[in-house]
């Protein structure tokens, strides 16, 4: 248990926005930049902006979740950290589960916070904002879990791994987007519940899928 806490402390120190120089802030700035540019691209049409703004926040959140993927596992595998953990009997599953928590903490809550200024930029009303925030709360753990799985699977690919990881995340995130952003148009709680259910399945799967992928790349 104390080992898991030590791992979490280290992971947060590496992933939280502001840690390790400016690189960890990029996903958040990227998220806000998309929300800021969108009204310029669409033009000053309040109805159109208010109708589509919630969806844009969702797409921006997905892109923000993709940006840190190449930092999740590759540096630790290269530095031999995973070998040392394995020798100490810390399973890959535990390390991946802890990293999933740290990865979500490093973008989920911050994206939800940044959605407040973003909602003002795209001009959506309070009720829509509520559905967006609830949807992000239900959906971002799932986005984090997809990111963790893909980052672990592509970790041994040198060079092109990061770009490929981004591409692979997108189709897997489609169900989350359909139900999460779909809840905006139907206004129903059903979409949110389904988003949370998909997230739950992904979060439960991620440590085992990710752990197996890391182990395979170590033994190969």
């Amino acid at each position: 248990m104390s080992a898991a806490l030590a791992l979490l402390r280290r992971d947060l120190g590496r992933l939280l926005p502001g840690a390790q120089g400016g690189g960890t802030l990029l996903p958040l700035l990227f998220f806000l930049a998309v929300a800021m540019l969108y009204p310029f691209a669409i033009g000053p049409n309040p109805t159109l902006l208010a109708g589509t703004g919630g969806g844009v926040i969702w797409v921006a959140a997905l892109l923000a979740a993709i940006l840190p993927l190449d930092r999740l596992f590759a540096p630790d595998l290269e530095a031999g950290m995973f070998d040392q953990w394995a020798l100490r009997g810390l399973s890959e599953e535990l390390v991946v589960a802890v990293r999933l928590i740290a990865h979500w903490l490093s973008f989920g809550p911050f994206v939800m916070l940044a959605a407040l200024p973003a909602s003002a930029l795209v001009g959506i009303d309070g009720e829509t904002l509520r559905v967006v925030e609830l949807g992000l709360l239900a959906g971002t753990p799932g986005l984090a879990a997809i990111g963790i799985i893909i980052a672990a699977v592509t970790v041994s690919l040198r060079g092109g791994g990061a770009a490929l990881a981004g591409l692979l995340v997108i189709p897997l995130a489609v169900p989350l987007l359909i139900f999460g952003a779909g809840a905006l148009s139907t206004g129903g709680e059903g979409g949110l519940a389904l988003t949370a259910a998909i997230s739950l399945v992904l979060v439960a799967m991620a440590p085992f899928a990710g752990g197996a992928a890391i182990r395979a790349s170590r033994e190969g």
Partner: protein
Amino acid sequence: MEECRISATNLACRRGDRLLFAGLSLALGPGEALQLVGANGIGKSSLMRILAGLARPYSGEVGRQGSLALLDERPALDEHQPLGRALDFWRSIDGGEAAGLERLGLEALLDVPVRYLSTGQRKRAALARLLGQRAPIWLLDEPLNGLDTHAIALVETLVAEHLAEGGIAIIASHQTFALPTLTRLALSEHVA
């Protein structure tokens, strides 16, 4: 020190299509040390990873009792962290006190980020991590690379002390390692 032994029977290792070595057996008990010798690429590091349980042998079995520590070319310390903090991370997992910082000449370097350390300093930092783990079985992959003569003598003393306490050491190195009780295993005799 806890009871320890390590043995391997009839190991074979394959890399891609190439069989690196086959029919390799060894057995070590408390206080024994073994040096693996052989040319570059003959499979010393692969054998180390198999003995550590980090890679699977193509055939054969590894038996082991007691925990195991590995030192290889990667120090496994966070590059951007000061050395003290990077070592603290491993201490928080291994438990216990910092070991050997003074003997390894690292005390003055604790505030220096790991990425600024020289090759020899990195190796000494990795040795501090190894000492802190307090494992009875040491696997040292090229432990003398990048070290000056003073540090080489220190590593030889550390290994001798470890053996005297009832530990096991397996050293893969192409350099001579001064240790009276060291037996040698030439991998070239097991090339398939």
